[in-house]
């Protein structure tokens, strides 16, 4: 009895048969069903990105113009250039760096 058990092919034999005869399941409507259930695209079209950017810039400019009277801007700018050229330069660099970082983060998402 023990010999019979010992000589009997194990699950490996059956598994080998299964691997050889594995049926190919036709994709029928399966792929279409998966594709319709995928979440909506998260990537915005380029034109929409530009419109959003334009609206944000216009809104930001409007807020600044509302708080800072336009008439004093040239005088303010002259004073800044004359009195604190390093501060003005550093501010510009910082603004560009922040804008670049924001764009980079958005692109990675």
């Amino acid at each position, binding site marked *: 009895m023990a010999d019979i058990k010992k000589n*009997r*092919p*194990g*699950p*490996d*034999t*059956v*598994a080998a*048969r*299964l*691997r050889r*005869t*594995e*049926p*190919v*399941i*036709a*994709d029928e409507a*399966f*792929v279409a*069903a*998966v*594709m319709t*259930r*995928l*979440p909506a*695209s*998260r*990537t915005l079209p380029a034109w929409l990105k530009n419109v959003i950017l334009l609206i944000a810039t216009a809104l930001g400019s409007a807020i600044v113009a509302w708080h800072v009277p336009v008439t004093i801007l040239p005088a303010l700018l002259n004073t800044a250039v004359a009195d604190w050229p390093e501060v003005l330069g550093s501010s510009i660099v910082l603004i560009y760096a922040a804008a670049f970082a924001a764009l980079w983060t958005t692109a990675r998402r």
Partner: protein
Amino acid sequence: MPLDDRALIGQVLRNDDRQAFAALVRRYQSRLRYSLRQLTGYDAARADDLAQETFIKAYRHLRQFHSDAHFFTWLYRIAWRCFADDCRKAGPERPGNIQAVPEPGYTTQERDNLHMDFAKALMNFGPEQRMVLHLHLQREFTQRDIARIMDCPLGTVKSHIQRGRTKLQEYLAAWQT
């Protein structure tokens, strides 16, 4: 020439290319659906639901895929989690009964019976051991890969295989001719 997995994944990530993702689904759907049929006692409807869920999760988390791994292996990690969650929700399952009586030199019908019988034999094990046995015997993954896919200790995988083989031998005695 068809694009390889990495190229297709790159297209999905860069341009949200749905056609590229459809190509990945088409490439692996048969193998994954078959695996899930084996794990669910050959319940085609349940297996297909799980396969759909697996592909949708794969799409959602595609950025987490590391290109040094095989896409198929990663897909199995997701499938395993979907399957384990489904088993928890569904509660206890009924053990499978093997009905086919095989003849030597089996026909197509018998071949199909063999696949169903194996799936039913697997139903006598818990979901974790069932997955281990399927991945080891039918998919020929290494024990280390199985531990990685299922996120469980290597020792657990080894003991599941060792105990499972003996039990399977009894369940499938009729086919081992």
